[in-house]
């Protein structure tokens, strides 16, 4: 089954390799440039000495250069789109194409029973996707490391590119597409249905992290001595006074600013919650697909 | 090598067609004693027919004493049927010509003659079975 799986997914594997090369090239180039500026601006020393309190201007200018604007937007969209579309493209034909083209009658009448065929294939392809996800995540993490020291990792780019999210989102799209392919016996239809499902799930995840913030969040009350300023949540240095905190919202309450924020050290908790949701859906979809294939008599 | 023909639409079972072709070729002299017939595999592949059909035809020919041979060693013509004795043939030809003249005088058409021959042959066969 190893050779068969490889041969059937060979093109997809090559595309993934190409993506790694492209993303890797960009990440290495941009990351190197970022590190150069980071060091040139004297930020490492400043952070070591005062945790960022001593060089707010340098930090702000650094963030402005590398985080705001076109550069981050370019990479942000692919980071969300790639796992989705790649997962669909790999998952929908896995069963969908066999059923649509009738090659299932060939594949499942050799000597390998269909359940073993599917589990072997899923194991290998999932492993390949995980490897791809881990490599991309590693590249993104390395690239973004300097910024991570001065901004919150709950920002879209680092959040979707580091930790579990990229791989989990990829596996989720994959799992849902495999199941859709089995049920609909059709590649395009499976891609459409799976895309809708994955979109809904992604929307839910975003809501959870955003307005709903189901996630572990903390609240801080800041007294304002001379009238409370209209503080924006989007300021480079979080009003909580700690680099890396992600501020959700600031409201005025009497002579206090009530700040709700995600503490920097909650990054992984959030990753496990949101990434975990994706993974649960992925595993459930794949499990259901195997179960249905096993029970089905046609 | 002797090549066979098969007519799928003739209504005659394939194995009988094979037997007839051998008999006919023997009468015409195209097959002679010692000639080898194709193997079962060769014939099945050549004509795209069931090998058992070939086996049946060869068995029939062997039963009629026309062929012989051991399995795995091929099938050979062992005896050509004797052509009918010239005397018998000649007298039969004469009586047949006389019969046709009588039928023509009685007003029988060609088709009526053919039908009559078929009926008589059928009755004779029945007599033989029953």
């Amino acid at each position, binding site marked *: 089954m190893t050779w068969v799986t490889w041969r059937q997914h060979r093109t997809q594997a090559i595309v993934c390799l190409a993506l790694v090369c492209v993303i890797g090239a960009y990440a290495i180039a941009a990351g190197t440039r970022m590190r150069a500026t980071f060091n040139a601006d004297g930020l490492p020393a400043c952070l070591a000495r005062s945790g960022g309190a001593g060089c707010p201007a340098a930090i702000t200018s650094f963030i402005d250069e590398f985080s705001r604007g076109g550069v981050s937007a370019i990479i942000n969209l692919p980071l969300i789109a790639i796992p989705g579309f790649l997962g669909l493209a790999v998952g929908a034909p896995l069963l969908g194409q066999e059923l649509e083209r009738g090659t299932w009658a060939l594949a499942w009448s*050799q000597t390998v029973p269909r359940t073993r065929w599917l589990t072997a294939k899923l194991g290998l392809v999932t492993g390949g996707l995980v490897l791809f996800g881990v490599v991309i995540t590693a590249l993104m993490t390395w690239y973004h490391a300097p910024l991570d020291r001065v901004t919150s990792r709950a920002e879209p780019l680092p959040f979707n590119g580091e930790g579990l999210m990229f791989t989990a989102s990829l596996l989720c799209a994959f799992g849902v597409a495999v199941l859709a392919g089995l049920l609909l016996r059709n590649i395009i239809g499976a891609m459409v249905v799976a895309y809708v499902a994955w979109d809904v799930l992604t929307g839910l995840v975003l809501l959870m992290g955003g307005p709903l913030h189901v996630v572990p969040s903390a609240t801080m009350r800041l007294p304002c001595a001379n009238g409370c300023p209209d503080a924006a949540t989007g300021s480079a240095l979080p009003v909580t006074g700690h680099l890396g905190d992600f501020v959700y919202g600031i409201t005025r309450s009497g002579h206090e600013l009530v700040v709700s924020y995600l503490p920097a050290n909650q990054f992984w908790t959030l990753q496990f919650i949101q990434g975990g949701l994706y993974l649960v859906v992925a595993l459930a979809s794949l499990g259901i697909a195997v179960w249905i294939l096993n029970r089905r008599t046609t | 090598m002797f090549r066979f023909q098969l007519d799928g639409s003739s209504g005659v079972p394939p194995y009988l067609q094979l037997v007839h072709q051998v008999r006919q070729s023997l009468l015409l002299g195209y097959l002679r004693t010692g000639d080898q017939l194709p193997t079962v595999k060769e014939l099945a592949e050549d004509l795209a027919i069931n090998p058992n059909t070939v086996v049946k035809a060869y068995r029939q020919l062997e039963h009629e004493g026309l062929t012989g041979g051991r399995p795995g060693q091929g099938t050979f013509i062992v005896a050509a049927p004797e052509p009918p004795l010239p005397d018998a043939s000649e007298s039969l030809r004469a009586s047949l010509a006389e019969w046709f003249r009588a039928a023509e005088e009685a007003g029988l058409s060609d088709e009526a003659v053919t039908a009559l021959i078929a009926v008589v042959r059928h009755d004779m066969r029945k007599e033989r079975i029953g």
Partner: protein
Amino acid sequence: MTHDGAVALRADRLGKRYGQTWGLRDCTFAVPAGSIVGLVGPNGAGKTTLLTLTVGLLAPTEGQIAVFGEPSRARAPATLARVSYLAQDHPLYRGFSVADMFHFGRSMNQRWDQALAEQRMDALGIPLQRKIKALSGGQQAQVALTMALAKRAPLLVLDEPVASLDPIARLDFMRDVMGAAVGSGLTVVIASHVISELERLCDYLVVLAGGRLQLAGPVDDLLAAHHLLTVPRSVPDTGLPGTVISRTDSDRHSTALVAAGLGQLAEAERPGWRADPVSFDQLVLAYLQRPPVTDHNRLARSAVTS
């Protein structure tokens, strides 16, 4: 060639239900090893259902089907290894090369005769590196057949193998199947709805219609057991020997295809009656057109014959 004794394929009250409809019901027959079986029936008669049950792609709803004594169980490797299956429209992976397809066969089967596969391609003039989608329909069918033969299973099942092929490709294909059958003592099942092609190919016949078994048995025995009777119009069915399978009435005479032995024929014969042998086509057509035996008419039918 038929080997005495061994039964290659035995169906025992085999049935398959899809939702509310029965695709196949109450199917019983036994095929001797080494036979070449013709499975005939109109589209939707249950041929593909019967074949997929045999191969192990489908599980029966009732009854069972056994290949060389072992019941076919869906998806059991033992079942899958015993049968080579060539599905309708000979599915292949179009992006693969011929060599890739053989690699696939080797990976997915316990037994695989790579030498046979390559030798056949060589004989047919099909390069191993060519992509499947670049081959003609006839060549693709040959590749699919090669894969089935290289699996070296004792039972070969072909589902309408030549339906989409031109006449020359058809002939070449069936030549190869016949040649392979002789070479390896294979038992072959060929499903088709084209009756005329099957006469020269099969020595065992299974006729399906409406999901029911209409007729099954060795061709020679079946042809010997049926006759075409020409009788006066006034003779009723009950006055005819054996079972009347089909009857055509003209003004003064009727022609009836009956299932009757020579003994029964001899007893029943009257002057003016005529008995002729039945051809393969006539036999199959008569049984195809006969209303399928259902539980309703089974009793009525047996009352007539007894």
